[in-house]
């Protein structure tokens, strides 16, 4: 016998989340970005869908506001793709909360996402999701540094060995 966790007053939670998103407009405005109330509502729906799909539950406004604030200064975002990317980022965020076994805090995960998105991924969501974050999550599960890159490490070692050989010759 257990309480149904879905008894949460969804309307109230949604309202709170939408107002939090709308508050972000004041900050993202300087980057020529804006979100309408309708698009805010859609983002909240994506969040609910992702949470349900991934077997998670969230209390309060959630992380959409945080994602918007962190990503708004990205050179790969424009008003045209802003909304679409946000939907993807929300899904990716919750997916990797599970994949990192909740060992990474919300802020850290969002910051890593931003770092890779602006860095090696050059704005590619596919590379972010399927390569960089996948590697990072695997590193966390195995207890390594999140930034540890097996391939880079192998290349570095190979180069060092070659250098050593050259020196010996």
């Amino acid at each position, binding site marked *: *016998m*257990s309480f149904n*966790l879905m008894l949460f007053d969804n309307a109230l939670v949604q309202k709170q989340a939408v107002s939090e998103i709308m508050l972000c407009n004041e900050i993202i405005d300087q980057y020529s970005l804006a979100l309408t109330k309708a698009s805010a509502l859609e983002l909240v729906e994506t969040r609910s869908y992702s949470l349900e799909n991934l077997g*998670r539950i*969230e*209390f*309060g406004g959630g*992380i959409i506001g945080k994602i918007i604030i962190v990503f708004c200064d990205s050179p790969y975002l424009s008003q045209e793709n802003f909304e679409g990317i946000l939907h993807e980022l929300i899904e990716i965020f919750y997916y990797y909360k599970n994949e990192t076994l*909740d060992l990474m805090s*919300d802020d850290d995960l969002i910051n890593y996402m931003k770092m890779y998105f602006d860095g090696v991924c050059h704005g590619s969501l596919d590379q972010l999701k399927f390569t960089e974050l996948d590697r990072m999550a695997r590193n966390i599960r195995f207890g390594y540094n999140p930034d540890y890159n097996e391939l880079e490490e192998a290349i570095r070692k190979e180069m060092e060995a070659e250098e050593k050989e050259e020196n010996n010759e």
Partner: protein
Amino acid sequence: MNSIDKHSKIDEQKLSKEFFFQSLLQEAYIQGELSQLESERIQGECLKLLSESTERYTKGQSSSVRVETAQNIMASNLYTISIYLKSLPNVSTAIYHIIHEPIEKLYEYGYKIIIRKLNVAKYFFHQIDKTKISTQNHTYNATIETGLKPFFEQYNVNFGTHEIPGSIDYQLIHPVTDLAGVEYIIQYLENLYYENLFCQKFDADIIHEVMCGYDENYKDLLDNLCEQVLQNALGCMFLKKPVQSLDLNLLDIQKIGNKLLGKKQPFIFDQLLEATNEMFEDLEISNTSVEHYLLSSLPKIALKICTALETDTIEKVFVPRFNPHSKPIVKYYMGVKMDDKAYRDIVSELLSCRYFEDKLQIIKEYIKTLADMEDIIIAGQFSFAEASTVFDLLDDIEVAALVKHNPINQEVNVVEYSVEEVLMQKNLKKYLENIPTERLANIHKTMATIEVI
């Protein structure tokens, strides 16, 4: 009349002890003691409490958690509230508090009670450690020595109050059901403590022998020790034997069976009750909790006896003591040797025979004891085939006695025995190697239990 004193329509028997709060809410709603509005308010407050607990759980680092984690925290919160509600005098008071107090407050009260209960559990655990009986039963030892400790190290008073960390495998006379968390542990430890106090009245070696009588491999079983000790003690009381000996032989058990045969369960229960009260006096048990604990197991024992009488298995309820180390020794007498002159005549006649059949005939006719048989086999210096035929004349116990009397040890043989004796030993060894495995096993088993004189 104060609203607390109102008589509740809720049947307390219907309420779950494990999920008390939830079942109380459900029943109260069904009985109309909780309105729809109040019910919604309580659910909302519970979710608010969950939200706060989750934030504490993630230390504010994560706004979302897995559903299973949230369910676990919710179950823990509801358990904590249940603990407080159960501490109230009755259901009406509990409902009064649910309606008039914020859920968060109920949780706080419950939390304080859990901390107190943990101390009670620690006290019982300490007592169990002090009263632990010396036994070879692995489950009993492992549960007390290593199984219960994790509870006190890992019990989470914030997010896992309903859980029972640890490995509790030892079965009690009265298993703890319908309880969880610290309540389960307290009840389990309390029951185990009473069982220990009772078993302490008996010598550990005697308990060991009783349990060996129950099953020689009892140390690997998950069965309760106290129950068998109690049953044997009651058996002794029936027969007016000293209770602390717990000693019943098969005849005693048969007597108990005859005494109770054809009797109805209430009669058997009365007999058990009488015997138990006498036993308390004999063993000087004055602890009322122990008395109550043991008395409440009598209906179960009465039923067990009834079933055993019907199926003619009373020796499974009352068991004879058995010491696996003291195996019964059968003294085997090899018999009187014949007169020297008569023996010499027989040997001369045997050695003068041309055919083995004639030798065999002489052996069959004149050799009457195993002692003479041993001598004649040695003196006859038979080949293996001939010796085998002679050995075939012997029973298993005779072969066993012969082997035991002539241990085959090559190093000793050279010095201690004559050539003829060594030949006989070699033939005997070869004979044993060629007989069927089952017969060989039987001979070995017999060898272990006989003493040749």
